[in-house]
């Protein structure tokens, strides 16, 4: 019971945060709203017994990625401007209506998944996950580090001042 309410509450918080981001003009405030969304999502993960994912979400997303964004916003000269953040009305309308139609369609798809979900807390999910991670999916796990290495090299090479 509490579970259900918590999920709904955190879900509502995430949606509200995204809405807040939509209407923000300043990028810094948008970043803070995003932070709220990410942490709310982490909360939902815990309630869905995906504990490892929740913690990783906080560390990677809310921690590393958001820090990157905030650093970028604060250091780039043109990023923090206060001028109008949003595009001409017609295009805004087009974008919003597109998103609305998309939502309608997606909801219709979602309605085909009518089942009951048992949200009882599961204690062994982390063990099971790590058994898979160090078992059949170990290779893919190691590949992830390669991926991140590539990202680092790319980012550093792209942003250097002098080759």
């Amino acid at each position: 019971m509490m579970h259900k309410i918590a999920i709904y509450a955190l879900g509502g918080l995430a949606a509200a945060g995204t809405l807040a981001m939509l209407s923000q003009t300043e990028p810094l405030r948008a970043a803070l709203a995003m932070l709220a969304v990410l942490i709310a999502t982490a909360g939902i993960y815990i309630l869905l017994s995906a504990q490892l994912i929740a913690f990783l979400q906080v560390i990677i997303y809310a921690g590393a990625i958001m820090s990157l964004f905030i650093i970028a916003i604060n250091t780039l000269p043109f990023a923090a401007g206060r001028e109008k953040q949003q595009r001409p009305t017609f295009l805004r309308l087009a974008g919003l209506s597109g998103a609305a139609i998309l939502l309608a369609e997606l909801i219709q798809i979602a309605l085909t998944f009518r089942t009951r979900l048992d949200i009882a807390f599961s204690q062994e999910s982390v063990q099971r996950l790590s058994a898979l991670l160090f078992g059949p999916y170990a290779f893919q796990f190691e590949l992830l580090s390669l991926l991140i290495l590539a990202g680092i090299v790319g980012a550093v090479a792209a942003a250097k001042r002098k080759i």
Partner: protein
Amino acid sequence: MTGNFYPLLKWIILPPLAGFVLNGGIGKRFLGEKGGGWLGAAAILLAFIFSFLCFSDLLNLPAGHRLLRDTLFNWISAGSFSIDFALRFDPLSAVMALVVTGVSFLIHVYSIGYMRGDKGFNRYFSYLNLFVFFMLILVLADNPILMFVGWEGVGLCSYLLIGFWYEDEKNAAAGKKAFITNRVGDAGFLIGLMLLSYLLARQGVSGLDFETLALNINLLDGGTVLGFGAPTVIGLLLFFGATGKSAQFPLYIWLPDAMAGPTPVSALIHAATMVTAGVYMLARMSFLYALAPRALEVVLVTGVFTALLGAVIAALQSDIKKVLAYSTISQIGYMFMAAGTGAYAAGIFHLTTHAFFKALLFLAAGSVIHGMAGEQEMFRMGGLSKEMRFTFALTAVGWLAISGIPPLAGFYSKDLVLEHVYAHGVPVLWYAGLATAGLTAYYVTRLLALTFLGGKNSETHAHESPLLMTIPMAALAALALTGGWLGSKYLLAFLDPASARAEISPEAFRLTMISVITALAGVASGFFFAIPAISDALARRLSIAREVVYNKFYVDEIYAFAVIRPLKRLADKVCFGFLDAGLIDGLLVNGAARLTYRTGAVLRNLQTGNAQGYALTFTGGLILLLYWIM
């Protein structure tokens, strides 16, 4: 089929083909004049020998079953329609093959002397050999499609040889005229062939060799095309092609112009062989014309009309070759006359004798031209009987032959034709034929008198031609002397065993007398009017008529105005201007390019470079995709 694998037949056509390839390919560099000329002549001699061997084999077969065939390979095979490259040797082909190869050989030898020193010597002999090759295919073909291959081939060689000295534009124009006029006739011929094969195929007959055609032609009897009887329509269409090839009205206009080619070419192609192809075709397709008496009437009337027209125009020409050209047109009219009455054997008989004496006359004219260093106007000749004795004697033989004086060749064959025309029952046609005979005698006598008799009109000292030229002429003269008598005894029976003539009826004897008297009258008036004073007086009296006749009744000019000019305008404005430049070029080709460019210009506007615009498009696409999935 009787004798379906007689292998000697293909050896008749192979030597001329080899001669063409050798002379054309390596002649100029390796063979030179002597080698090339004798190679060409030897090739034809080989063809003649093989023809003779086949002929003797044919004689060993009983009359009525005389047929030798050979199928070389399957040429066209499309569903049930199948055409073989097959050769056929029956009495008709035998006569044609022997005449073609024999006369060709003599003319080849003559040409070695005539064309000496010409810088296109080897090219000449290769073309001549190619011509004989195609002509042999024409006469030996076993189905009308293969015959048409030969038909077209000789037209091509005629074009090549008429315009042989192509540097002079007049010669090239004459060649073009010949080819195009032939083409017009060939269009009719092709349509006739297509109708024939289509109508027969509709009845279930798919083979097109002459045997099958003759057997099944009755299936067409009673069928109609556009309201007219099918055999009549096909017969008329094929005959239209024959008028083009054999220079009859209305497609005879190319033959006088064709005299621009070397004289041996005129002798071979435009007297003895190619122009007779139409008569051969009629004889071959006699089974078709037996069902189409109306078509035969047209053939008969055309033959008579052309004969008379040719003779009238020839009577006033001043160029020696042009006289002979119109004479050829006239004599071929006689052959068509015979065919038009159903007497195909008589027509072929006249074809044979005509080949002899006309080739002789042409070669003699060539000898005169050679001796007079290129002069062709008769009014500038005269008195050559003393300087060119041998040529004079031989020309005299030809003169007697063509005038129809017995016992030379022309008398027998022309008389036979006139007999058949008389027996056909329409008197005016016979009168016209008789008048033509008289005119023939007249103009040939005139030619002889102006060229050889009387006083000299020019300063050139004419020299007699070398042996290489005179010996072939002598051979032809011998044939002109004996051919008629021999032919009437053996040829007719050989060609058509059914038409054996037993006795000469008194009716026939009377007709013969009339024609001989007409011929003698023609000769006499020829001598009479050759006296300059008399001819000048007559010319002054009938000057307008003379003008019209001398200008060939202005037929060329009428054609140019009524046919050629509108066609040229049609080709220029409609076909070129509208269709080619406008439609195909402008609309389809350039239009396609313009369309692509414009489309690109429009589509380019999609690439705004705006990332969010792209994202919007993504979203739209995603929406549609999901909608479709749902």
